């Protein structure tokens, strides 16, 4: 079986043989939620960081007991999985104030007493990028370290932390190389395949991940998955973890060449500075990496990133998505809409539910969008189409 296929298989599962083997050897697995939590700390403690995903969810019926229908489907699915015991193999969970929905996972987890004796921790990540927030992040990292040391009777020394940082930087470097491959005209990996890789590597030991990524980079050499007339797409969204959804986009006549999604580029953007004190370096990297709209003072940074990617990856159209009831991405898409009008780039805005189906509707909308982009490329028009029919901009 190819390495890519292997990772695609792992992506679909909650548990895998690597975790099983590690646990058999006494290694602990700590669940976490967001790209603002430094994985290196868990690794330096001798644990495996495990990104909690909604993959394989059977629905939200149990999650809905605790969360309302006005909460996003990511938390409802993941909490449903928690209640069904899908994460029982974890030795603890580190929650985070990612957004109003996810921060209440910490409250509902404690309240529902799913696993009262299991290690739980609330990590505070600042909402702004500033020297003060970097300092605060460093303090929070220290608190997390102290908590892990106390609870699991382990030692996280600066030396082990440095080693972990180095390994995670290797992983980031390899993922950057993987993404860079898609700058070319001939693209060796589809966006849907990259998402599967990301879904897998966030639940694998980093050492295994590095091996896999090296192998995949070799494996895909000379491979070409795109057709010449496929549109080159930038996908931006909050939580987006359905490989099938990306396949749907790509099967409709496109190739996703870059992204800013929770499980995408922001996971490896910006290396940790190995020359600095490890805690300071981690704080700097995790505050300053490609931001999510939860960071209040970085609209410009995200837009600059968008235009750089657009240039570097020769993006022809942008698909921007949000999950229903996500205020953070709702605001981001408002800005995208204004920006698309101002700078005249084709934009499709979609609002959807995680594992919400509606593939027929989505397919129609995506196909219509692509058709129009391709037609307009011929006649030199620019336009925007949004999820509603609130406006459509067209000008020569």
């Amino acid at each position: 079986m190819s390495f890519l296929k292997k990772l695609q298989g792992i992506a679909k599962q909650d548990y895998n043989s690597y975790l099983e083997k590690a646990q058999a050897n006494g290694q602990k697995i700590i669940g976490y939620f967001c790209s603002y939590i430094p994985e290196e700390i868990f690794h330096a403690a001798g644990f495996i960081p495990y990104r909690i995903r909604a993959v394989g969810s059977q629905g939200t019926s149990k999650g809905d007991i605790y969360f309302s229908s006005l909460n996003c489907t990511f938390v409802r699915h993941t909490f449903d999985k928690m209640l069904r015991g899908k994460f029982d193999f974890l030795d603890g969970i580190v929650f985070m104030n990612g957004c109003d929905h996810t921060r209440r996972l910490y409250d509902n987890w404690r309240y529902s007493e799913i696993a009262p004796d299991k290690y739980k921790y609330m990590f505070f990540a600042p909402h702004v990028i500033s020297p003060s927030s970097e300092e605060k992040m460093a303090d929070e990292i220290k608190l997390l370290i102290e908590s892990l040391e106390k609870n699991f009777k382990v030692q996280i020394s600066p030396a082990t932390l440095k080693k972990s940082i180095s390994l995670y930087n290797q992983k980031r470097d390899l993922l950057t190389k993987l993404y860079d491959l898609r700058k070319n005209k001939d693209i060796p990996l589809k966006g849907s395949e990259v998402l599967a890789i990301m879904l897998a590597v966030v639940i694998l030991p980093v050492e295994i991940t590095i091996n896999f990524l090296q192998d995949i980079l070799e494996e895909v050499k000379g491979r070409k998955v795109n057709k010449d007339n496929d549109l080159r797409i930038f996908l931006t969204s909050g939580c987006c973890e359905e490989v099938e959804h990306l396949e749907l986009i790509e099967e409709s006549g496109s190739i996703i060449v870059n992204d800013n999604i929770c499980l995408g580029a922001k996971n490896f953007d910006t290396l940790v500075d190995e020359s600095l004190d490890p805690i300071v370096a981690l704080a700097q990297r995790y505050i300053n990496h490609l931001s999510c709209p939860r960071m209040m003072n970085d609209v410009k940074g995200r837009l600059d990133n968008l235009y750089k990617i657009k240039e570097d990856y020769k993006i022809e159209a942008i698909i921007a998505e949000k999950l229903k009831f996500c205020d953070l991405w709702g605001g981001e898409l408002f800005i995208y809409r204004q920006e698309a009008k101002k700078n005249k780039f084709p934009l499709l805005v979609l609002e959807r539910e995680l594992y919400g189906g509606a593939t027929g509707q989505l397919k129609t909308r995506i196909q219509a969008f692509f058709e129009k982009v391709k037609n307009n490329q011929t006649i030199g028009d620019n336009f925007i189409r949004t999820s509603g029919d609130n406006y459509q901009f067209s000008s020569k």
Partner: protein
Amino acid sequence: MKEKSLKPFILLKVAINRLKLLYFFLFFPRLTYTLFYLFRPFYEPKENFLNRTFRYGILTFGGGLTPFKEMKAMQAGAKALFENMEEAIKAKKMNKPVAWVEWILNAEILEAFDIVSFNPELLNLFGNAKGIEYPPLVIAEAEKKGVPVETCSAVKCTVGSILLEQIPHPDIIIGASHPCDSSISIYQQLEYLTGSPTFSFDSPYWKDDASYKYFEKNTWDLIDFLEKNLNQRMDWDKLKEVLERTNKVNFYLQEICEMNRAIPCPGTMISLLYAWVIKEVCVRSPLAVPMAKGLYEVTKSRFDKGEGVVKKEKIRVLKWFPPIGFFTYLFKWMEHKFGAVVVADFIGHVSTIQMDTSSKKSMIRDLAKAQMHIAMARQCHGPVEFLTDELGKLIDDYSPDCVMFMGHNGCKHGWAALKIIQDFLKRKKMPTLYLNLDIMDKRHTNEEGIKKQITEFFVSHGWA
């Protein structure tokens, strides 16, 4: 709704005119009270084209049910409000910078600069002065331009207000990461739309020393930001002056809250909410102190006599989550119709510290701490216990018969904690009405719908 066009600043100007009119009338409080009372049948039942431009204002001031002494106390607040609004509209002519400050932040620090502070969310309430369909019109404008329907209307109104040129363009913006994601999101949109330099307070998760220190650091960062962007130096004497005023306002309001524990309850919640608005919008004004003192004296007089705000108190209500902007008359309506008194509320309840003004350091330290104790900032930024602990304490202290939970659509973290809150109230054996509404947008559940649900709730419990 039929599309209407709005002249620039028209909603603000109407609000100013109505507040001025009221201010004038309140020089004759007995006469005003009598007129309000006598004309009740004309305006109280519902809004129509004849009473549209003054019904909301009169009802907010009690609709002839608020004793004239209390109304007189509100006079100073009305002046503080229209002075601030006028100053904001005229700021450009006066060559003064305008600073937008979000609802859940006090504007004290701006007193130390030569600047006009303005609360951009004002039209949620004061837009109703022209008729209660206007705030939804402003909200709809934001939605039309792509702001999601589910974003909290309280902040969405600001986007609509700037798009429709209803509020002055800011020279700087001060936002915060509390109380919710809607605020985080909208203030980024406002920065983008206006292009104005924006400072974002970052609210910590916990309420411990480290968190207070972080917020204090944020406050020092704000001073740097203001000095740099305004090219002015901080006037510490002025800050001291305003903080001392804030201390006095907080003292009086906290005393009212304490007295409201008495049975019968001597205070009406609308007065505390009105005071909260003045405090948030223009605590800088020296008029905030006489207003708070006046309200305190009225409540104290009733408290000393053992009188309640209603002659016969039948139901004591604890109202939880933000109040309804377009239906501020709710309190007086419940008092009048059912003898139901709101004894404590999410926003009107003042629970803060007295700030030490003896040094620069102590002022900033305590101002930061006080900011974290403003209503909504206090309860919404951390774990669910910040909600349930205060709720439980109010139930224990204020002897309510029931709770009314304002299930505001935009409040996602509230909905995510609803099961915990519901179970908590069950354990406290509190009959609870869970209203499903949008606090600023009557298109979701209107005044009639709210009245109907409350009436049914009281009837079903045998209280009415």
